[in-house]
Protein backbone atom coordinates (compact mmCIF):
# COMPACT_ATOMS: atom_id res chain seq x y z
CA UNK A 1 0.00 0.00 0.00
CA UNK A 2 2.79 2.33 0.92
CA UNK A 3 4.50 1.53 -2.34
CA UNK A 4 1.33 2.31 -4.29
CA UNK A 5 1.04 5.62 -2.50
CA UNK A 6 4.63 6.49 -3.30
CA UNK A 7 4.15 5.58 -6.94
CA UNK A 8 0.94 7.61 -7.20
CA UNK A 9 2.65 10.55 -5.60
CA UNK A 10 5.46 10.27 -8.10
CA UNK A 11 3.06 10.24 -11.01
CA UNK A 12 1.05 13.20 -9.75
CA UNK A 13 4.25 15.11 -9.14
CA UNK A 14 5.41 14.37 -12.67
CA UNK A 15 2.15 15.62 -14.18
CA UNK A 16 2.14 18.80 -12.17
CA UNK A 17 5.83 19.34 -12.75
CA UNK A 18 5.69 18.85 -16.48
CA UNK A 19 4.39 22.28 -17.38
CA UNK A 20 6.68 25.28 -16.97
CA UNK A 21 6.68 28.82 -18.33
CA UNK A 22 7.96 27.56 -21.67
CA UNK A 23 5.03 25.15 -22.09
CA UNK A 24 2.56 27.80 -20.91
CA UNK A 25 3.79 30.41 -23.35
CA UNK A 26 4.40 28.07 -26.29
CA UNK A 27 1.09 26.25 -26.09
CA UNK A 28 -0.96 29.38 -25.45
CA UNK A 29 0.74 31.29 -28.23
CA UNK A 30 0.42 28.47 -30.74
CA UNK A 31 -3.23 27.91 -29.85
CA UNK A 32 -4.07 31.56 -30.38
CA UNK A 33 -2.30 31.77 -33.71
CA UNK A 34 -2.88 28.37 -35.27
CA UNK A 35 -5.88 26.94 -33.47
CA UNK A 36 -5.32 23.20 -33.39
CA UNK A 37 -3.10 23.04 -36.46
CA UNK A 38 0.03 22.39 -34.39
CA UNK A 39 -1.55 20.09 -31.82
CA UNK A 40 0.26 17.10 -33.32
CA UNK A 41 3.63 18.45 -32.11
CA UNK A 42 2.70 17.92 -28.46
CA UNK A 43 2.36 14.12 -28.61
CA UNK A 44 5.53 13.95 -30.72
CA UNK A 45 7.36 15.95 -28.06
CA UNK A 46 5.87 13.91 -25.21
CA UNK A 47 6.96 10.60 -26.75
CA UNK A 48 10.43 12.08 -27.17
CA UNK A 49 10.76 13.25 -23.58
CA UNK A 50 9.36 9.94 -22.29
CA UNK A 51 11.92 8.02 -24.32
CA UNK A 52 14.77 10.23 -23.26
CA UNK A 53 13.77 10.49 -19.59
CA UNK A 54 13.28 6.73 -19.30
CA UNK A 55 16.81 6.11 -20.57
CA UNK A 56 18.27 8.70 -18.20
CA UNK A 57 16.31 7.33 -15.27
CA UNK A 58 17.35 3.78 -16.04
CA UNK A 59 21.00 4.81 -16.38
CA UNK A 60 20.82 6.67 -13.06
CA UNK A 61 19.15 3.74 -11.29
CA UNK A 62 21.49 1.03 -12.62
CA UNK A 63 24.83 2.82 -12.73
CA UNK A 64 24.26 5.41 -10.02
CA UNK A 65 25.60 8.05 -12.38
CA UNK A 66 23.63 11.08 -13.57
CA UNK A 67 23.55 12.40 -17.11
CA UNK A 68 26.25 15.04 -17.15
CA UNK A 69 28.77 12.85 -15.40
CA UNK A 70 28.56 10.50 -18.36
CA UNK A 71 28.65 13.19 -21.03
CA UNK A 72 32.21 14.11 -20.22
CA UNK A 73 33.23 10.45 -20.13
CA UNK A 74 31.72 9.81 -23.52
CA UNK A 75 32.68 12.99 -25.37
CA UNK A 76 36.03 13.67 -23.74
CA UNK A 77 36.99 16.86 -21.91
CA UNK A 78 37.04 19.18 -24.91
CA UNK A 79 33.70 18.35 -26.50
CA UNK A 80 32.30 17.81 -23.03
CA UNK A 81 33.23 21.36 -22.11
CA UNK A 82 31.60 22.75 -25.24
CA UNK A 83 28.56 20.69 -24.38
CA UNK A 84 28.61 22.01 -20.83
CA UNK A 85 28.83 25.59 -22.01
CA UNK A 86 25.84 25.19 -24.30
CA UNK A 87 23.73 23.18 -21.87
CA UNK A 88 24.52 25.45 -18.95
CA UNK A 89 23.69 28.60 -20.90
CA UNK A 90 20.37 27.19 -22.09
CA UNK A 91 19.53 26.06 -18.56
CA UNK A 92 20.49 29.46 -17.13
CA UNK A 93 18.37 31.18 -19.77
CA UNK A 94 15.44 28.93 -18.86
CA UNK A 95 15.94 29.71 -15.19
CA UNK A 96 15.81 33.40 -16.02
CA UNK A 97 12.57 32.85 -17.91
CA UNK A 98 11.06 30.90 -15.01
CA UNK A 99 11.95 33.65 -12.54
CA UNK A 100 10.24 36.10 -14.89
CA UNK A 101 7.23 33.80 -15.09
CA UNK A 102 6.84 33.59 -11.33
CA UNK A 103 7.09 37.38 -11.06
CA UNK A 104 4.47 37.81 -13.79
CA UNK A 105 2.12 35.41 -12.02
CA UNK A 106 2.53 37.42 -8.82
CA UNK A 107 1.87 40.63 -10.76
CA UNK A 108 -1.36 39.19 -12.10
CA UNK A 109 -2.45 38.23 -8.61
CA UNK A 110 -1.48 41.44 -6.81
CA UNK A 111 -1.26 44.16 -9.48
CA UNK A 112 2.18 44.99 -8.13
CA UNK A 113 4.64 45.43 -11.00
CA UNK A 114 6.53 42.23 -11.77
CA UNK A 115 9.93 43.93 -11.59
CA UNK A 116 9.41 44.51 -7.90
CA UNK A 117 8.74 40.83 -7.44
CA UNK A 118 11.81 39.61 -9.33
CA UNK A 119 14.43 39.99 -6.56
CA UNK A 120 12.09 38.47 -3.99
CA UNK A 121 11.38 35.53 -6.29
CA UNK A 122 15.10 34.97 -6.82
CA UNK A 123 15.67 35.00 -3.09
CA UNK A 124 12.79 32.60 -2.43
CA UNK A 125 13.95 30.19 -5.12
CA UNK A 126 17.41 30.14 -3.60
CA UNK A 127 16.00 29.79 -0.09
CA UNK A 128 13.86 26.78 -0.97
CA UNK A 129 16.81 25.11 -2.72
CA UNK A 130 18.96 25.83 0.32
CA UNK A 131 16.60 24.67 3.03
CA UNK A 132 13.79 22.45 1.80
CA UNK A 133 14.39 18.73 1.38
CA UNK A 134 14.48 17.39 -2.16
CA UNK A 135 11.49 15.06 -1.98
CA UNK A 136 9.30 17.52 -0.15
CA UNK A 137 10.18 20.30 -2.55
CA UNK A 138 9.25 18.11 -5.50
CA UNK A 139 5.97 16.97 -4.01
CA UNK A 140 4.69 20.32 -2.83
CA UNK A 141 5.22 22.12 -6.10
CA UNK A 142 4.34 19.14 -8.25
CA UNK A 143 1.01 18.64 -6.54
CA UNK A 144 0.22 22.35 -6.48
CA UNK A 145 1.03 22.46 -10.20
CA UNK A 146 -1.76 19.94 -10.72
CA UNK A 147 -4.12 22.90 -10.28
CA UNK A 148 -3.39 23.61 -13.92
CA UNK A 149 -6.02 20.97 -14.59
CA UNK A 150 -8.26 24.03 -14.47
CA UNK A 151 -7.32 24.53 -18.12
CA UNK A 152 -8.81 21.15 -18.97
CA UNK A 153 -11.92 21.95 -16.97
CA UNK A 154 -12.20 25.34 -18.67
CA UNK A 155 -11.80 23.75 -22.07
CA UNK A 156 -14.62 21.34 -21.36
CA UNK A 157 -16.78 24.15 -19.97
CA UNK A 158 -16.20 26.26 -23.07
CA UNK A 159 -17.97 23.50 -24.93
CA UNK A 160 -16.18 23.23 -28.26
CA UNK A 161 -17.44 21.16 -31.14
CA UNK A 162 -15.22 18.15 -30.38
CA UNK A 163 -15.72 16.69 -33.81
CA UNK A 164 -14.41 19.89 -35.35
CA UNK A 165 -11.52 19.99 -32.91
CA UNK A 166 -10.44 16.46 -33.77
CA UNK A 167 -10.74 17.24 -37.46
CA UNK A 168 -8.63 20.40 -37.17
CA UNK A 169 -6.00 18.65 -35.12
CA UNK A 170 -5.65 15.72 -37.48
CA UNK A 171 -5.76 17.78 -40.65
CA UNK A 172 -3.26 20.53 -39.94
CA UNK A 173 -3.87 23.48 -42.21
CA UNK A 174 -2.17 26.82 -42.35
CA UNK A 175 -4.52 29.58 -41.25
CA UNK A 176 -4.91 32.35 -43.83
CA UNK A 177 -2.04 34.78 -43.78
CA UNK A 178 0.41 32.39 -42.10
CA UNK A 179 3.44 31.09 -43.96
CA UNK A 180 5.05 27.65 -43.77
CA UNK A 181 8.40 28.84 -42.34
CA UNK A 182 6.67 30.44 -39.34
CA UNK A 183 4.56 27.32 -38.88
CA UNK A 184 7.69 25.19 -38.78
CA UNK A 185 9.40 27.66 -36.47
CA UNK A 186 6.59 27.32 -33.96
CA UNK A 187 6.58 23.56 -34.38
CA UNK A 188 10.23 23.55 -33.34
CA UNK A 189 9.51 25.94 -30.46
CA UNK A 190 6.73 23.68 -29.20
CA UNK A 191 9.03 20.67 -29.58
CA UNK A 192 11.78 22.46 -27.62
CA UNK A 193 9.29 23.36 -24.88
CA UNK A 194 8.31 19.72 -24.46
CA UNK A 195 11.85 18.36 -24.55
CA UNK A 196 13.88 20.91 -22.60
CA UNK A 197 17.32 19.52 -21.66
CA UNK A 198 17.08 20.56 -18.01
CA UNK A 199 14.25 18.10 -17.46
CA UNK A 200 16.51 15.13 -17.99
CA UNK A 201 19.47 16.63 -16.11
CA UNK A 202 17.07 17.10 -13.25
CA UNK A 203 15.34 13.75 -13.57
CA UNK A 204 18.55 11.71 -13.59
CA UNK A 205 20.23 13.80 -10.88
CA UNK A 206 17.04 13.57 -8.84
CA UNK A 207 17.19 9.81 -9.19
CA UNK A 208 20.67 9.86 -7.70
CA UNK A 209 19.52 12.33 -5.00
CA UNK A 210 16.82 9.85 -4.04
CA UNK A 211 19.29 6.93 -4.12
CA UNK A 212 17.53 4.96 -6.79
CA UNK A 213 18.65 1.36 -7.31
CA UNK A 214 17.67 -1.18 -9.96
CA UNK A 215 14.46 -1.84 -8.00
CA UNK A 216 13.42 1.74 -8.68
CA UNK A 217 13.49 1.41 -12.44
CA UNK A 218 9.79 0.54 -12.32
CA UNK A 219 9.00 3.63 -10.26
CA UNK A 220 10.98 5.80 -12.62
CA UNK A 221 9.13 4.30 -15.56
CA UNK A 222 5.68 4.86 -14.08
CA UNK A 223 6.54 8.49 -13.42
CA UNK A 224 7.65 8.87 -16.98
CA UNK A 225 5.13 6.81 -18.92
CA UNK A 226 2.04 7.90 -17.01
CA UNK A 227 3.07 11.26 -15.60
CA UNK A 228 4.56 12.88 -18.67
CA UNK A 229 1.79 12.00 -21.13
CA UNK A 230 -0.80 13.35 -18.70
CA UNK A 231 1.35 16.44 -18.44
CA UNK A 232 1.15 16.58 -22.21
CA UNK A 233 -2.63 16.52 -21.93
CA UNK A 234 -2.39 19.61 -19.73
CA UNK A 235 -0.29 21.28 -22.42
CA UNK A 236 -2.93 20.48 -25.02
CA UNK A 237 -5.61 21.88 -22.72
CA UNK A 238 -3.72 25.17 -22.54
CA UNK A 239 -3.47 25.20 -26.32
CA UNK A 240 -7.14 24.34 -26.66
CA UNK A 241 -8.22 27.13 -24.37
CA UNK A 242 -6.49 29.86 -26.34
CA UNK A 243 -7.53 28.19 -29.57
CA UNK A 244 -11.15 28.59 -28.54
CA UNK A 245 -10.91 32.02 -26.97
CA UNK A 246 -8.32 33.91 -29.01
CA UNK A 247 -7.94 32.18 -32.34
CA UNK A 248 -11.40 33.10 -33.67
CA UNK A 249 -10.66 36.74 -32.80
CA UNK A 250 -7.32 36.63 -34.58
CA UNK A 251 -5.59 37.81 -31.39
CA UNK A 252 -2.13 36.44 -30.73
CA UNK A 253 -1.28 35.74 -27.11
CA UNK A 254 1.78 37.57 -25.87
CA UNK A 255 1.19 38.19 -22.19
CA UNK A 256 0.74 35.87 -19.24
CA UNK A 257 -2.53 37.63 -18.48
CA UNK A 258 -3.93 36.40 -21.79
CA UNK A 259 -2.73 32.88 -21.03
CA UNK A 260 -4.71 32.96 -17.79
CA UNK A 261 -7.84 34.42 -19.34
CA UNK A 262 -9.68 31.35 -20.66
CA UNK A 263 -10.19 29.74 -17.21
CA UNK A 264 -11.45 33.12 -15.98
CA UNK A 265 -13.81 33.34 -18.92
CA UNK A 266 -15.10 29.82 -18.41
CA UNK A 267 -15.13 29.58 -14.64
CA UNK A 268 -15.16 33.12 -13.33
CA UNK A 269 -13.20 34.38 -10.34
CA UNK A 270 -12.68 30.89 -8.96
CA UNK A 271 -11.12 29.79 -12.24
CA UNK A 272 -8.83 32.80 -12.23
CA UNK A 273 -7.69 32.19 -8.66
CA UNK A 274 -6.97 28.53 -9.33
CA UNK A 275 -5.06 29.19 -12.54
CA UNK A 276 -2.91 31.85 -10.91
CA UNK A 277 -1.94 29.54 -8.05
CA UNK A 278 -1.31 26.77 -10.57
CA UNK A 279 0.89 28.98 -12.76
CA UNK A 280 2.78 30.20 -9.72
CA UNK A 281 3.43 26.66 -8.50
CA UNK A 282 4.40 25.32 -11.92
CA UNK A 283 6.84 28.14 -12.70
CA UNK A 284 8.28 28.28 -9.18
CA UNK A 285 8.81 24.52 -9.26
CA UNK A 286 10.49 24.84 -12.64
CA UNK A 287 12.70 27.65 -11.30
CA UNK A 288 13.84 25.28 -8.54
CA UNK A 289 14.56 22.55 -11.08
CA UNK A 290 16.49 24.79 -13.46
CA UNK A 291 18.43 26.38 -10.60
CA UNK A 292 19.49 22.98 -9.34
CA UNK A 293 20.19 21.77 -12.88
CA UNK A 294 22.55 24.69 -13.46
CA UNK A 295 24.53 23.47 -10.45
CA UNK A 296 24.23 19.80 -11.46
CA UNK A 297 25.66 20.28 -14.93
CA UNK A 298 28.74 22.22 -13.85
CA UNK A 299 29.45 20.07 -10.77
CA UNK A 300 28.99 16.83 -12.69
CA UNK A 301 31.36 17.90 -15.46
CA UNK A 302 34.14 18.82 -13.03
CA UNK A 303 33.52 15.99 -10.59
CA UNK A 304 32.57 18.19 -7.62
CA UNK A 305 30.36 16.91 -4.85
CA UNK A 306 26.83 18.04 -5.67
CA UNK A 307 23.30 17.51 -4.44
CA UNK A 308 20.88 18.25 -1.68
CA UNK A 309 21.51 14.86 -0.15
CA UNK A 310 24.65 16.19 1.57
CA UNK A 311 25.15 19.19 3.84
CA UNK A 312 25.70 22.41 1.92
CA UNK A 313 29.16 22.62 3.51
CA UNK A 314 30.11 19.45 1.69
CA UNK A 315 29.00 20.74 -1.69
CA UNK A 316 30.16 24.33 -1.52
CA UNK A 317 31.02 24.82 -5.19
CA UNK A 318 27.71 23.27 -6.30
CA UNK A 319 25.70 25.64 -4.10
CA UNK A 320 27.93 28.50 -5.18
CA UNK A 321 27.13 27.90 -8.84
CA UNK A 322 23.40 27.64 -8.16
CA UNK A 323 23.44 30.84 -6.14
CA UNK A 324 25.42 32.69 -8.80
CA UNK A 325 23.12 31.54 -11.60
CA UNK A 326 20.04 32.72 -9.71
CA UNK A 327 21.68 36.10 -9.05
CA UNK A 328 22.53 36.53 -12.73
CA UNK A 329 19.00 35.48 -13.70
CA UNK A 330 17.56 38.12 -11.40
CA UNK A 331 19.87 40.77 -12.81
CA UNK A 332 18.94 39.90 -16.39
CA UNK A 333 15.25 40.19 -15.53
CA UNK A 334 15.85 43.55 -13.90
CA UNK A 335 17.08 44.94 -17.22
CA UNK A 336 13.34 45.02 -18.07
CA UNK A 337 13.72 42.63 -20.97
CA UNK A 338 10.32 41.11 -21.77
CA UNK A 339 10.00 37.83 -19.85
CA UNK A 340 7.85 36.33 -22.59
CA UNK A 341 10.57 37.05 -25.15
CA UNK A 342 13.16 35.46 -22.86
CA UNK A 343 10.93 32.41 -22.61
CA UNK A 344 10.63 32.14 -26.36
CA UNK A 345 14.37 32.31 -26.81
CA UNK A 346 14.93 29.75 -24.09
CA UNK A 347 12.73 27.15 -25.76
CA UNK A 348 14.19 27.68 -29.22
CA UNK A 349 17.73 27.36 -27.87
CA UNK A 350 16.64 24.28 -25.98
CA UNK A 351 15.76 22.71 -29.31
CA UNK A 352 19.19 23.68 -30.65
CA UNK A 353 21.01 22.16 -27.67
CA UNK A 354 19.07 18.89 -27.55
CA UNK A 355 21.34 16.66 -29.70
CA UNK A 356 24.30 17.46 -27.46
CA UNK A 357 22.79 15.64 -24.54
CA UNK A 358 20.66 13.17 -26.42
CA UNK A 359 23.27 11.30 -28.42
CA UNK A 360 25.63 10.43 -25.51
CA UNK A 361 22.70 9.17 -23.45
CA UNK A 362 21.54 6.98 -26.30
CA UNK A 363 25.06 5.51 -26.44
CA UNK A 364 25.41 4.98 -22.69
CA UNK A 365 21.99 3.36 -22.40
CA UNK A 366 23.32 0.73 -24.81
CA UNK A 367 26.63 0.15 -23.03
CA UNK A 368 26.63 -3.16 -21.13
CA UNK A 369 29.53 -2.03 -18.97
CA UNK A 370 27.17 0.50 -17.38
CA UNK A 371 23.81 -1.15 -17.79
CA UNK A 372 24.49 -4.86 -17.40
CA UNK A 373 21.55 -6.57 -19.04
CA UNK A 374 19.34 -3.50 -18.77
CA UNK A 375 20.62 -2.09 -22.05
CA UNK A 376 18.12 -0.64 -24.50
CA UNK A 377 15.70 -3.02 -26.13
CA UNK A 378 14.77 -2.88 -29.80
CA UNK A 379 11.86 -0.49 -29.25
CA UNK A 380 13.99 1.99 -27.35
CA UNK A 381 16.70 1.80 -29.97
CA UNK A 382 14.39 2.05 -32.97
CA UNK A 383 12.47 4.95 -31.49
CA UNK A 384 15.73 6.34 -30.24
CA UNK A 385 17.19 6.46 -33.73
CA UNK A 386 14.05 8.04 -35.14
CA UNK A 387 14.13 10.72 -32.48
CA UNK A 388 17.83 11.24 -33.00
CA UNK A 389 17.08 12.22 -36.57
CA UNK A 390 14.16 14.42 -35.46
CA UNK A 391 16.17 16.12 -32.78
CA UNK A 392 19.05 16.80 -35.16
CA UNK A 393 16.68 18.18 -37.80
CA UNK A 394 14.99 20.49 -35.28
CA UNK A 395 18.33 21.63 -33.94
CA UNK A 396 19.74 22.48 -37.36
CA UNK A 397 16.59 24.21 -38.59
CA UNK A 398 15.91 26.26 -35.48
CA UNK A 399 18.30 29.17 -35.90
CA UNK A 400 17.85 29.63 -39.65
CA UNK A 401 14.08 29.61 -39.20
CA UNK A 402 14.35 32.03 -36.32
CA UNK A 403 16.30 34.43 -38.48
CA UNK A 404 14.13 33.93 -41.54
CA UNK A 405 10.87 34.52 -39.69
CA UNK A 406 12.31 37.19 -37.36
CA UNK A 407 11.51 34.96 -34.38
CA UNK A 408 8.02 34.19 -35.53
CA UNK A 409 6.59 37.55 -36.54
Amino acid at each position, binding site marked *: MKRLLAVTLGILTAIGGFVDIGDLVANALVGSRYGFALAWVVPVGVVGICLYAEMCGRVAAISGRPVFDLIRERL*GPRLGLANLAASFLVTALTLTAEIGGVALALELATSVNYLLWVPLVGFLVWLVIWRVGFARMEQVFGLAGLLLIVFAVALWKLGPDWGQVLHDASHPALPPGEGLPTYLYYAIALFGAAMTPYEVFFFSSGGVEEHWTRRDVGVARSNVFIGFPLGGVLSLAIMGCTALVFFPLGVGVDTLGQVAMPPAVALGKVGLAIVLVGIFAATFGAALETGLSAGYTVAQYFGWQWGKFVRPLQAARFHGVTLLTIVVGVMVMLTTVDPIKVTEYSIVFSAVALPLTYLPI*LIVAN*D*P*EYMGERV*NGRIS*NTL*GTVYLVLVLAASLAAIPLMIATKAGQ
Partner: protein
Amino acid sequence: MRLSELLGREVTDRTGVRIGTVIDVRLAQDGPPRAQGQAALRITGLIVSPRSSGRLLGYERTPKEGPWLVRMLVLGFNRGVRYVPWEWVDRIDTTPLRVDRAASEIPHLRDLPTPPGRP
Protein backbone atom coordinates in the same frame (compact mmCIF):
# COMPACT_ATOMS: atom_id res chain seq x y z
CA MET B 1 55.12 12.29 -17.60
CA ARG B 2 51.37 12.41 -18.08
CA LEU B 3 49.38 9.81 -19.91
CA SER B 4 47.56 12.48 -21.90
CA GLU B 5 50.88 13.37 -23.50
CA LEU B 6 50.69 10.06 -25.34
CA LEU B 7 47.20 10.69 -26.67
CA GLY B 8 46.94 12.42 -30.00
CA ARG B 9 50.55 11.74 -30.88
CA GLU B 10 51.40 10.85 -34.45
CA VAL B 11 52.89 7.38 -34.91
CA THR B 12 55.13 6.22 -37.76
CA ASP B 13 56.72 2.89 -38.52
CA ARG B 14 60.42 2.12 -38.79
CA THR B 15 60.71 3.72 -42.22
CA GLY B 16 58.73 6.83 -41.42
CA VAL B 17 55.40 5.74 -42.94
CA ARG B 18 52.53 7.23 -40.97
CA ILE B 19 50.40 4.69 -39.13
CA GLY B 20 48.04 7.05 -37.38
CA THR B 21 47.35 8.87 -34.13
CA VAL B 22 47.29 7.43 -30.63
CA ILE B 23 43.66 7.33 -29.53
CA ASP B 24 44.00 5.20 -26.42
CA VAL B 25 46.54 3.44 -24.21
CA ARG B 26 46.01 -0.16 -23.14
CA LEU B 27 46.83 -1.04 -19.54
CA ALA B 28 47.08 -4.35 -17.71
CA GLN B 29 46.95 -4.85 -13.98
CA ASP B 30 50.07 -6.99 -13.77
CA GLY B 31 52.84 -4.66 -12.69
CA PRO B 32 54.83 -4.93 -9.47
CA PRO B 33 52.56 -4.86 -6.41
CA ARG B 34 51.98 -1.41 -4.91
CA ALA B 35 51.88 -0.39 -1.27
CA GLN B 36 48.43 -1.86 -0.65
CA GLY B 37 49.29 -5.13 -2.33
CA GLN B 38 47.48 -4.47 -5.60
CA ALA B 39 49.36 -4.89 -8.86
CA ALA B 40 50.27 -1.69 -10.65
CA LEU B 41 48.71 -0.79 -14.00
CA ARG B 42 51.28 -1.39 -16.71
CA ILE B 43 51.11 0.11 -20.20
CA THR B 44 50.91 -2.83 -22.61
CA GLY B 45 50.39 -0.94 -25.86
CA LEU B 46 49.00 1.95 -27.84
CA ILE B 47 45.81 1.99 -29.86
CA VAL B 48 46.42 3.88 -33.04
CA SER B 49 43.88 5.10 -35.58
CA PRO B 50 44.56 6.36 -39.08
CA ARG B 51 41.97 9.09 -38.60
CA SER B 52 43.38 12.08 -36.82
CA SER B 53 40.19 12.92 -35.01
CA GLY B 54 39.70 11.35 -31.63
CA ARG B 55 37.52 8.55 -30.43
CA LEU B 56 33.86 8.15 -31.21
CA LEU B 57 31.78 8.08 -28.09
CA GLY B 58 33.28 5.00 -26.47
CA TYR B 59 32.01 2.27 -28.73
CA GLU B 60 35.30 1.62 -30.39
CA ARG B 61 36.02 -1.93 -29.64
CA THR B 62 32.83 -3.77 -28.84
CA PRO B 63 29.75 -2.52 -30.69
CA LYS B 64 27.69 -5.62 -30.10
CA GLU B 65 24.61 -3.74 -29.01
CA GLY B 66 23.05 -0.49 -29.89
CA PRO B 67 21.14 1.26 -32.60
CA TRP B 68 22.08 -0.14 -35.95
CA LEU B 69 22.98 3.28 -37.31
CA VAL B 70 25.44 3.96 -34.51
CA ARG B 71 26.99 0.50 -34.78
CA MET B 72 27.58 0.93 -38.52
CA LEU B 73 29.20 4.31 -37.94
CA VAL B 74 31.47 2.88 -35.27
CA LEU B 75 32.46 -0.19 -37.30
CA GLY B 76 33.35 2.08 -40.18
CA PHE B 77 35.37 4.25 -37.90
CA ASN B 78 37.21 1.26 -36.45
CA ARG B 79 38.52 0.07 -39.78
CA GLY B 80 42.25 0.46 -39.81
CA VAL B 81 42.68 0.82 -36.05
CA ARG B 82 45.88 -0.89 -34.97
CA TYR B 83 47.58 -1.97 -31.76
CA VAL B 84 51.24 -1.21 -31.11
CA PRO B 85 52.76 -3.20 -28.22
CA TRP B 86 54.62 -0.90 -25.87
CA GLU B 87 57.88 -2.80 -26.33
CA TRP B 88 57.86 -1.96 -30.05
CA VAL B 89 57.86 1.79 -29.42
CA ASP B 90 61.33 3.04 -30.09
CA ARG B 91 61.37 6.23 -28.08
CA ILE B 92 58.58 8.27 -26.57
CA ASP B 93 60.25 11.63 -26.53
CA THR B 94 60.29 12.00 -30.30
CA THR B 95 57.55 13.57 -32.36
CA PRO B 96 56.17 11.58 -34.05
CA LEU B 97 56.45 8.37 -32.01
CA ARG B 98 58.48 5.82 -33.91
CA VAL B 99 57.62 2.14 -33.89
CA ASP B 100 60.44 -0.31 -34.33
CA ARG B 101 58.66 -2.38 -36.96
CA ALA B 102 57.36 -2.05 -40.49
CA ALA B 103 53.74 -1.00 -40.90
CA SER B 104 52.77 -4.40 -42.28
CA GLU B 105 53.86 -6.10 -39.04
CA ILE B 106 51.66 -4.00 -36.80
CA PRO B 107 48.42 -5.87 -36.06
CA HIS B 108 44.91 -4.55 -36.54
CA LEU B 109 43.00 -4.32 -33.29
CA ARG B 110 40.10 -6.43 -34.51
CA ASP B 111 42.47 -9.30 -35.35
CA LEU B 112 43.59 -9.56 -31.75
CA PRO B 113 41.71 -11.70 -29.21
CA THR B 114 39.52 -9.85 -26.74
CA PRO B 115 41.57 -9.27 -23.58
CA PRO B 116 40.58 -11.24 -20.47
CA GLY B 117 38.13 -9.66 -18.07
CA ARG B 118 36.33 -7.53 -20.66
CA PRO B 119 32.60 -7.82 -21.42
